[in-house]
């Protein structure tokens, strides 16, 4: 820590303690602070101070005391983010919300859960399931990511095709502004149009507008049963046609995941079942709902694709279901073996554009001589694009950067977006103006300016800063 900072910090911590912070909630030691400066993007920066508040009031206190000294604030959940959303700077304070992890209420009558932001998504799901209720958003990180982080990034997941994303479940919020005041927005009403919809504005704002301290989440009745099937097709376009056919035939899957042929090859050997050699695209389809409806839809699925698909396996029990999912679960570690590094983007396109994107990426891969592995959520058009490379080879690294430029160009040309569920953070901010016009970005900046005129709340995220470089 540089010398002039020390007296400032000593004074600040003294005031925090006077205001009720216990010494265990204030982390100053160099080595410990360093554990709050990274996320899943492998970036790292040490904050000047880390606070572990245990109530909304403590968040207010911390932000007010920081405001007096014009210090920057970086909210942090589980820091499992994929776009650098919680990466601090060395002159900022991390507010880690992991200790605010109480489920405050499960209102069964209105089917609404009230939670603190540090509650782990999977834990809420487990808790509400005891009441026959269901919180559908299922980001891959759900067993460790927090709801606060999910709301801030508007996290999605495989179930989005039927159930939507986090935003579709946030009924209301409490959040602390950069001046230390708490605002409340939304309520338990299904219909609610009084004033601006600040809830929707804060969802997906990546911690740049306010620090979320309480969340009201909509719950739905838990589906009675789930049926999982795996289908293999000779081409991506055949798989895309199959998806369209499902919807046309009133089959409404809760999940449609796909694996392209690179992905298939990466996991083929490790699978507990064998895939035909001609399989180019694999779809993993889940149908959920009442037992009778699931049965009827599954039968329809079987009838439709028995002859058209190269392979159709239907899981008969939980064990077989887990086996089918191994194809998807083993993917990330398996493709990591293809090259020392990967650049991972999570573009999204309108569902019908998937075959076109995959074909264009195939051409790109040939042109830049780097494998591009695609898999992800075919149901909602969200594709995880992985450029496999060795960054230690400067020439390959350069081709990788070029590939990302082109991936985004292709995506936007086909009516897509830079990020389906990871957010912009600091890794994609340099590309924001490729997607949005100057006027649109100016409107976004005006909102940021209104909430945070001094740019002290999670600065450096979403908006390109002068000289900011994309980070992969």
């Amino acid at each position, binding site marked *: 820590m540089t010398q002039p900072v020390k007296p400032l910090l000593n004074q600040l911590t003294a005031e925090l303690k006077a205001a009720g912070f216990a010494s265990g909630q204030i982390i100053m*030691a*160099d*080595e*410990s602070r*360093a*554990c*709050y400066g*990274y*996320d*899943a993007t*492998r970036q790292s920066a040490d904050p000047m101070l880390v606070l*572990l508040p245990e109530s909304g009031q403590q968040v207010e206190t911390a932000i007010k005391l920081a405001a007096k000294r014009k210090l920057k604030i970086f909210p942090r959940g*589980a*820091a*499992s983010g994929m776009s650098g959303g919680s990466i601090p700077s060395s002159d900022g304070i991390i507010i*880690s919300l*992991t*200790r605010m*992890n109480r489920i405050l209420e499960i209102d069964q009558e209105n089917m609404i859960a009230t939670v603190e932001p*540090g509650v*782990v998504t*999977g834990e809420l799901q487990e808790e509400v399931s005891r009441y026959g209720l269901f919180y559908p958003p299922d980001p891959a*990180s759900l*067993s*460790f*990511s927090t709801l606060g982080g999910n709301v801030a990034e508007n996290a999605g997941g495989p179930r989005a095709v039927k159930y939507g994303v986090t935003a579709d479940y946030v009924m209301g919020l409490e959040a602390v502004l950069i001046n230390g005041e708490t605002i409340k927005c939304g309520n338990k009403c299904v219909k609610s149009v009084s004033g601006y919809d600040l809830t929707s504005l804060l969802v997906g704002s990546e911690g740049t507008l306010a620090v979320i301290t309480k969340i009201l989440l909509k719950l739905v009745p838990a589906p009675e049963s789930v049926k999982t099937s795996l289908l293999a097709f000779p081409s991506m376009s055949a798989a895309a046609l199959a998806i369209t056919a499902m919807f046309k035939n009133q089959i409404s899957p809760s999940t449609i995941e796909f694996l392209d042929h690179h992905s298939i090859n990466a996991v083929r050997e490790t699978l507990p079942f064998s895939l035909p050699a001609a399989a180019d695209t694999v779809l993993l389809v889940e149908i959920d709902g009442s037992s009778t409806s699931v049965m009827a839809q599954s039968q329809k699925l079987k009838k439709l694709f028995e002859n058209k698909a190269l392979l159709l396996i239907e899981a008969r029990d939980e064990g077989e279901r887990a086996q089918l999912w191994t194809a998807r679960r083993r993917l*990330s*570690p398996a493709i*990591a073996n293809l090259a020392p590094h990967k650049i991972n983007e999570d573009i999204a396109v309108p569902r019908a554009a998937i075959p076109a994107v995959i074909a264009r990426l195939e051409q790109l891969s040939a042109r830049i001589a780097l494998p591009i592995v695609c898999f992800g959520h075919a149901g909602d058009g969200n594709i995880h694009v992985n450029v496999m490379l060795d960054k230690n080879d400067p020439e390959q690294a350069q081709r990788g950067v070029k590939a990302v430029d082109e991936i985004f160009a292709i995506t936007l040309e086909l009516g897509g977006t830079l990020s389906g569920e990871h957010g912009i953070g600091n890794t994609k901010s340099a590309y924001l103006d490729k997607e949005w016009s100057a006027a649109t970005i100016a409107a976004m900046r005006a909102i940021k300016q209104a909430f945070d005129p001094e740019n002290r709340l999670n600065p450096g995220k979403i908006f390109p800063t002068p000289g900011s470089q994309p980070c992969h």
Partner: protein
Amino acid sequence: MTLTWQQELKKCVKCGACMAVCPIYRQTGREEMVARGKLNLIERVDLEKPAHKKEIPAGWLEAIDSCLLCCSCEENCSKGVKITEIIAAARNRQSAKQGLNPIKKSAFALLLNRFFSMARLLKAGSFMQWLLWRRLPRHSGLVRRLPLPGIDDKTVIPALPRQQLDDYLRKRKAAPNLEPVLYFPGCATRYLYPQMGLDLIYVLEQLGFYGVVPPEFNCCGLVTWGAGDSKSTMELQQRNLAVIQKHAAIRQIVTGCASCGHALKEYDGLPADCEILDISEFLFRHKEKLEKLVGSRKLNRKITYHDPCHLRKGQKITAQPRWLLQLIAGENFVEMRHPERCCGAGGTFGLSHKALSRKILAEKTRDTDASGAEIVASGCPGCLLQLTEGALLAESSWEARHPVTVLADLLKNDAGKENRKEVE
């Protein structure tokens, strides 16, 4: 190829999956306490740096010390980072710098000393223990009689038996008609729970096997490894390997201790044709025979199962103990919620981090309570002791027992009621 701990560290991509399963993180909510944070600390704080020549940063010490070595993070790591190896290596460097904790140092010396041995010390203790400790009414184990420093009236310690496993086995007759297997009982079974060892030997005999227990077997070395004493660990390993070499005609080594099995399986230099088997694995190999033996007998009490970390996460054994309990109890075997969660014992962790360990234990106790079982089975003496303490703290009436003990009781129970003499 084995990677160095430095190379192992680099495999971590900080995805955060360890946060989902780390018992310490679950209780503290502190990033330094989860594998990802600990690895970051180890990477960032270079102990060889002049700045750390005299003093190791307090945050580093606390974090590295606060690990149960339960391997939960390893089980959940998609990159396969050998996290416990990195932690043990860090503790090793720490002890090289600061020296071992004096209590651990003298305890480890006892493990290696052939004359002033752990066996003799504990036997001496068995005569004196009643001065300070009293028997628990409903459970096996002791609690203090009088106020003792650092030990409250709910801390359960095992009763030290006057007759240790080796004493019983000295009187044993040879059985040339039975097929020999090596049995590695482990310190807890030898010195603290001889009945557990006798039960295991009994079950082996029923299946036609003779459990050979060489008295020269030493501690498996897991405790010294976990404490960062690589020198003692190597020494213990070499001695045990020598015993195994000596019995070259026997290729199977069984153990009823999850931690010992985990340690033995990791030995460098284990003969290639030698097999280490947890007792549940061994019994599963003789499935038909055991099913026939059990016949129509069924345990008529509700029983649940706690996965010992060193069995589930250390050895990837989950199905065999469940098969065994299903065989013993049929429908009376019920799963608790989160059987995979650590009980908080972690070798000496329960003693050195009492408050934290008990918070972890409290959740396990609640899940056991909720199962409605009268018995919680677990193939690890450390877990059994911890679970007994949990029952005492929560005033719950279930008891913690080794699956093999439950099985032995069932097999001995011909008349349909229990008639066995507990070993004092």
